[in-house]
C-alpha cells in the first residue's frame, strides 16, 4: 500500500490527531508566553533574580523531554497520565527561549534612546512599556517562534504519557515497524512546524524596527 493511499484512507484519524497536536502546542505556548514575557519584563531591572530565573529555565531545558514528562507524572494536580501533564511539560520546555529572548530584547536597546527617554522625564514603567517593550517585540517574537517549533517536535513525545497527538502514530509506527504509520505522524508534524515558522517569521519581520 502506498503512503498516499494510506493517508487518504486514514485522513480522518490523521486530521484528528493533527488537531489534537495543535491543541497541545497552542495551550502550552500560551502558558509559556503568559509566564515568560511578563517574567522577562519583571526581571529587566532585577539582576539577581534574573540570574536565578534564567538558570532554572536553562536547567529545565537540559532535561531530556521524555524524562521531563516522566518526572511530572507523580506530581499532584499537574501530574498524572494525559494531556494536562504534557501541556505543563511543554510549557516548561518553551519557557527558556521565550524568557531569554524577552530579556535580551528588552536590554539590548540603543543606549542613546534609553538615555533620551530618561532625560526627557519618562518614568521607569513608561520606558519599559513604551520604549523597551515595543522595540523588543521582534526579538520576543523570534523567541516565541523558536519555542513553537521546538514544542511541535517535542509534543510528539507526549503520546508516551497518553496525551495523544501525532506522536501516537509515531509510537505505533515504531512498535509495528510501519513506515506508513511513522510518516502519518511525522509528515503532519513537520508541516505544522514549517507553517508555524513561516507565519511567525512573517510577523517578526513586520514588527522589526531597524
Amino acid at each position, binding site marked *: 500500500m502506498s503512503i498516499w493511499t494510506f493517508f487518504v484512507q486514514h485522513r480522518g484519524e490523521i486530521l484528528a490527531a493533527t488537531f489534537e497536536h495543535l491543541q497541545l502546542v497552542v495551550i502550552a505556548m500560551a502558558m509559556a508566553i503568559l509566564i515568560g514575557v511578563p517574567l522577562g519584563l519583571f526581571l529587566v531591572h532585577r539582576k539577581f533574580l534574573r540570574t536565578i530565573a534564567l538558570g532554572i529555565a536553562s536547567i529545565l531545558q537540559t532535561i531530556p523531554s521524555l524524562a521531563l514528562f516522566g518526572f511530572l507524572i507523580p506530581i499532584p494536580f499537574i501530574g498524572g497520565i494525559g494531556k494536562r501533564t504534557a501541556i505543563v511539560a511543554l510549557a516548561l520546555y518553551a519557557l527558556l527561549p521565550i524568557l531569554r529572548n524577552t530579556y535580551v530584547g528588552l536590554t539590548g536597546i540603543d543606549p*542613546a534612546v534609553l*538615555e*533620551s*527617554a*530618561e*532625560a*526627557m*522625564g519618562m518614568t521607569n514603567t*513608561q520606558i519599559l512599556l513604551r520604549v523597551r517593550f515595543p522595540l523588543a517585540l521582534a526579538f520576543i517574537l523570534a523567541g516565541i517562534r523558536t519555542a513553537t517549533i521546538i514544542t511541535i517536535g517535542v509534543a510528539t513525545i507526549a503520546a508516551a504519557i497518553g496525551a495523544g497527538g501525532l506522536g501516537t502514530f509515531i509510537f505505533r509506527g515504531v512498535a509495528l515497524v510501519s513506515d506508513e504509520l511513522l510518516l502519518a505522524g511525522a509528515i503532519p508534524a513537520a508541516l505544522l512546524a514549517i507553517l508555524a515558522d513561516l507565519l511567525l517569521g512573517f510577523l517578526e519581520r513586520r514588527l522589526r*524596527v531597524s
Partner: protein
Amino acid sequence: MNPKALTASENLIEFRDVFFSVHRGATGEIISGVSLAVPQGETLVLLGRSGSGKTTLLKLINGLLAPTRGEVLVQQRRTTDWNLIQLRRSIGYVIQDTGLFPHFTVAENVGLIPMLEKWENTRIAARVEELLQLVGLEPTEFAKRLPRELSGGQRQRVGVARALAVNPPILLMDEPFAALDPVTRTELKSEFSALARRLNKTIVFVTHDLREALYLASRIILLETGHIVASGSPQAFMQIDHPEVRAFAASLAVHPGA
C-alpha cells in the same frame, strides 16, 4: 567670573563646589570642585577635550547623575530635592546620537512628553506642527516619517523640536551637531543660534569645537580634567593666558588640507 552672575535670584542653574566620582572616594574624580552659575537667558558653552567632564556636568543638571559632594541647584532648588521626573520635564535635552525613538514617527517623538503630560490631542497636534515649522521641517512632509527615513540633519532638527515640546526654560545640548557633515552643521548652527535668541532659553551647550563655542556662546567655560580652568565671553576668552586655552586656540589655526 562675572560677579553679577552670582546673585542667586536670577540664576537658573548653579553649581556649588560640586564633586563627582563614579566610585565614592577621593580618587578618580570626574568633576572636582566646580562652582558656576548660569543666569536666565545665557547660552553657556562648556568647552573641553574628551574626558574633561563636560557631559558629566550636563547630566548633573538634569539629575541623570547626582553629585558626590556639593550641590547643584536648578531654579534655586537642589536637584536632589526635586522630583526627578518633574525636573527633567522642565529641561530639554539634545544629544549627538539624537536618541529618537525608532518605533515612533516624527510627530509621535515630538509629542511624547505632551502626551505623557496628558495634553489634549488637538493641542498636541498643534504644538507638534508649530515645533516642526520652528525647526524648519514641513509638517505635512515629515510628521508621519520614521526616524530612519530622515537624514542626520533632519533627525537632529527633530531632536531639538522634541526637547522644546513642553516649552522648558532650560535646554541642555551635548555636541548636538558633532556627527553632522560640515555643511549641514554650519546650517544648523546658524539656525539654532537664531532660534535660541528668539526663544530666550537658558542653554548649556557642550562641545569640543572652539569655533562652535565662539559662534554660539554668550560665555565659554573651559574644562580640563574636571576643573574649570578658564571662563569668559568669547572675546575675553581668547585673551586668557592659560596653556589649555592656547591649545584650543591653536586648533583654530588653518591646517593644510582643511
